[in-house]
């Protein structure tokens, strides 16, 4: 694989073209389509929770979506629970009942299929705050003032598990800005807006992608799920000119390791949030959503390799 960048030709020998925002509204909507879908899902879930909690939405007397993102029940029958919260609670030493374990398994299954940090880009309400901060930061041209390893989030993840054991309460659930914002949107605003403002300012002025990309242990948890998740961004090696437009819009640019992507035919890192930004800005249509087993592995890479890397 040739990684040097000729001035005009990509490693595939084709000229490097860059993304150009279409002028027509239809073209722009096409570029923005994943952002639109994501906001529909994010806000739609909030509305379903809110309608059930505040307006008593139900189907034949069964509450539609009762609870919140920590734990909920669909139509009074299907339990759902945040697997990370259930893990923390279990580490405090209490024995939870099968219903909540089933709920956690269902959610783990959903994100195992849908792509791990798909939670982050498509469901988490803080994502809208973080995306807003990132957009504003680009517009204002705020320079980076220091560098922090994105692996810090795994330390926070371990810390939240250790503190759950030591303190006897689910450590992250008791301070989680995600849960605070979400609960207060559903059950009335208290001081939740302070959390929103805090993350906005932190991401805008202190650390780029600070909360979601460096600190959040829930994102770290789902990044681990994402290592084996089914839905991935597929990478078509022959068409890529290494123009780098994907990495410029990506909130987790380290996942766009193109050498690695060429080997395995997809963005394999669990830290990819499946937000789809890269897909719509790629001028060569190199990137597209795909299912892990169906993604074509280019010559030189095999599924064996993918599997091997997953395990290590």
């Amino acid at each position, binding site marked *: 694989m040739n990684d040097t960048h000729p001035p005009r030709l990509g490693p595939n020998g084709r000229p490097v073209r860059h993304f150009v925002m279409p002028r027509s509204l239809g073209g722009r909507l096409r570029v923005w389509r994943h952002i639109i879908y994501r906001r529909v899902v994010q806000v739609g879930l909030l509305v379903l929770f809110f309608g059930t909690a505040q307006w008593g939405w139900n189907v034949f007397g069964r509450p539609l979506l009762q609870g919140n993102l920590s*734990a909920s029940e669909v139509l009074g029958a299907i339990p759902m629970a945040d697997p990370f919260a259930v893990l923390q609670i279990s580490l405090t030493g209490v024995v939870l009942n099968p219903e909540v374990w089933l709920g956690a398994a269902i959610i783990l299954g959903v994100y195992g299929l849908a792509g791990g940090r798909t939670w982050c880009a498509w469901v988490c309400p803080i994502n809208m705050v973080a995306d807003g901060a990132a957009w504003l930061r680009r517009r204002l041209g705020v320079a980076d003032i220091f560098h922090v390893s994105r692996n810090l989030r795994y330390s926070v993840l371990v810390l939240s598990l250790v503190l759950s054991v030591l303190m006897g309460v689910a450590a992250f659930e008791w301070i989680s800005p995600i849960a*605070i914002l979400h609960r207060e949107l559903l059950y009335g605003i208290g001081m939740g807006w302070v959390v929103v403002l805090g993350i906005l300012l932190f991401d805008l002025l202190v650390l780029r992608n600070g909360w979601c990309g460096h600190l959040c242990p829930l994102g770290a948890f789902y990044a681990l799920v994402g290592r084996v998740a089914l839905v991935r961004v597929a990478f078509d090696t022959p068409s890529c000119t290494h123009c780098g437009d994907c990495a410029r819009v990506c909130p987790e640019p380290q996942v766009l390791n193109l050498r690695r992507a060429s080997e395995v035919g997809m963005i394999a890192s669990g830290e990819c949030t499946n937000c789809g930004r890269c897909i719509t800005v790629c001028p060569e249509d190199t990137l597209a959503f795909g299912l892990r087993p169906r993604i074509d592995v280019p010559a030189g890479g095999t599924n064996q390799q993918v599997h091997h890397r997953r395990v290590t």
Partner: protein
Amino acid sequence: MSSTRRDFLIKSAQAAALAVTGGLVWAYLLKQQANAAAYAIRPPGARMADDFNARCIKCGQCVRACPFDTLRLAHSAETIPIGTPYFVPRDIPCYMCEDIPCMNACPTGALDPGLEDIADARMGQAVIDIENCLSWQGLRCEICHRECPLTDKAITVEHHPRRISRHAMFVPLVHSDACTGCGICEKACPTEVAAIRVVQPELVRGRIGEHYRLGWKNAAGITEDFDAGRAKAGSPAAPTGLDYLNEGEP
């Protein structure tokens, strides 16, 4: 070689220091919040504070299940652990539904599904401020006694005779063995600030201790039930507490 080892040791020390400082601040926040649990009046079936704090996943399904809108989830910056359900009896008390829907909605068992009879719930404990209770001043009120869902069990009224030419006082008394802490009394109390209020029992209740001997209570067990004809050899069971008179201090 030694310089890379040195770098490694310093980096490790820095990471450890960051984890420990961060962990301590985090643990402090958790401890502060957990301590605040003593001020929360919890839904029926709520387990003891530590167990409840560990189990509650803060999902609000109990809040949604309550038909009287009694329950709330604590906001951030409230004096109650964040996101946990509680109620303010003076605003809306617990009306003690027989089917206990809040408890049944709880997915994690923070509200213990073992509670079968709502009368066995212990959400808190009503206490009377006798300096501000109308009945204890000598007026006829006793509203709490009449409103109490377990009237004559949880709240009784005693007659206290007063000086001649004035009528007796009818004073309410709360009995912790029956009070569920529903707070209907607190809601009903006509004083400007309620003179009967629900609190967590551990904030107000004392404990006698093992060594005191309440002789007149023990007497019943020793003498009235004692049947000489059927008594086995030896003396009847010793009364509880310490026998200072015959045995001295231990």
